[in-house]
């Protein structure tokens, strides 16, 4: 499915991600955990093309995305929900979702997105900037799904969201995976959410993956150890 090999990403002289290799299978939910500044966001941005990679390949179904620009990667099947959500705040909820249609070339918002997030249908004429944090998060996910991605990337989706909604978010992500048959990569710091949602956990430290565990074999203590300062 998604096959990343030898990926290097730098900001100027400082190399943030060094020779990273990982593979995500069909219908798999992978969580990348790590403390702040360990390279999670940089990895996400480089996968979607918002930040260029200096070496390595990102293969999605055998097609190398590394030389492509953001919009081409999205059209090839990447969906991105960034940290801080970055919805278009002066545009209405409906228009926000419609921007995502640029990738799929469809004209109308698929009805199942509203089924997934009924609150967005009620608020479709409101401006995105006037939604609450949790609603904005749903909007950002709906916008990414409108492009019918094969791989959905979410960068710290629980940031700034109440604990009760975090649990629901995990359920929603699993539902999206089951209904749409896509793979999900989520970067996180909230351990309970990770245990809720992930099939596999990767721990990132200083731009390198240092630990990997399948769902059945996740040792909470070990991962909590990596996350504590």
């Amino acid at each position, binding site marked *: 499915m998604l096959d990343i090999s030898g990926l290097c990403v730098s900001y100027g002289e400082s190399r943030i991600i060094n020779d990273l290799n990982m593979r995500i299978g069909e219908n798999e939910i992978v969580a990348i955990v790590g403390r702040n500044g360990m390279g999670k966001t940089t990895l996400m941005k480089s996968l979607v093309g918002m930040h260029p990679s200096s070496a390595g390949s990102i293969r999605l179904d055998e097609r190398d995305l590394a030389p492509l620009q953001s919009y081409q990667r999205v059209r090839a099947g990447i969906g991105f929900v960034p940290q801080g959500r970055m919805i*278009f*705040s002066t545009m209405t909820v409906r228009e926000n979702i419609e921007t995502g249609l640029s990738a799929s070339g469809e004209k109308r918002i698929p009805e199942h997105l509203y089924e997934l997030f009924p609150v967005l249908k009620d608020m479709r004429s409101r401006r995105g900037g006037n939604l609450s944090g949790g609603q904005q998060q749903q909007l950002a996910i709906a*916008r990414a799904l409108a492009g019918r991605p094969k791989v959905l990337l979410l960068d710290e989706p629980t940031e700034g969201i109440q604990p009760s909604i975090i649990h629901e978010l995990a359920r929603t992500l699993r539902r999206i995976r089951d209904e749409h048959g896509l793979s999900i990569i989520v970067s996180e710091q909230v351990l309970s959410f990770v245990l809720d949602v992930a099939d596999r956990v990767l721990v990132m430290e200083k731009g390198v993956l240092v630990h990997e565990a399948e769902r059945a074999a996740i040792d909470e203590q070990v991962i909590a150890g990596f996350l504590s300062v």
Partner: protein
Amino acid sequence: MFADYSAAELTSIFAMQGFAGLSLFSVFVLMALGLAIIFGQMGVINMAHGEFMILGAYVTWLTSGFFSSHLPGLFAAYFPVAILLAFLASALLGGAVEWLLIRHLYKRPLDTLLATWGLSLILQQAYRSIFGAREVGVRMPDWMMGSYAITDMIEVPINGLFVMGISLLTALGVYLLMYRSTWGRKVRAVVQNRPMAGAVGINTQQVDRVTFALGCGIAGIAGSAFTMIGSTGPTAGQLYIVDTFLVVVFGGAQSLLGTIASAFTISQAQSTMEFFLSGSMAKVYTLLVVVGILMVRPQGLFASRIRH
């Protein structure tokens, strides 16, 4: 300064000067629209915007010349054709300039200021070489000359009304394009957050090129309107660029309605005061008021309120 006039005279003066200001208003609206679209979209301040307008004016002049020598029977109908050609010529030049020059400088916004200023000098010299240094005047078809007499003292110039109609139609067209079309949705997404727009699948470079061309094309329409109020010369565009910046800033960048309101206020204030004062004093007072208002409301007349 009003003491020398009777109340009836004053009413007529204000009305007449108000209508006389309509052509100026039209030029301001069109110029500011183009400038605001380009600035909002890519943060480029197009110093050559006045020259794109003058290109439109020259195209209008050429079209009127062509019609009067080759199609004299259709001379009455040349103006709409001229507007269309002016739009196309300026838009094509704009698209080419974006491709050759501007797109290489998006990461260096200050350099685009210099580059477009240089472009304006190049274009001015090109006009001088091609069309000559002397100003040219466009002959209007008979139906656009003259004026309606509303009362004994108030007359409304027909060409002013016509040009205003065109600019309001253009503004309406831009509004529909920006707020009701797929393309406009993409533009607004890029304006809000360029990297994110790319990450939802929008080809931002293509949007940039079309937007720049559209902004320049609207300046071309402004050039057609301009032939009604001034004579076309190589450097005539420069006189309008500062006023246009003023209109954009005063109206609140990114607000279509604000741009129109601000163009109306400034052109009417200028036109009315010019009757009583000299042209430059009228400008001084207009500037003072605009600066004063901007100190109180730096975001301009109209700014949208949302939570960020």
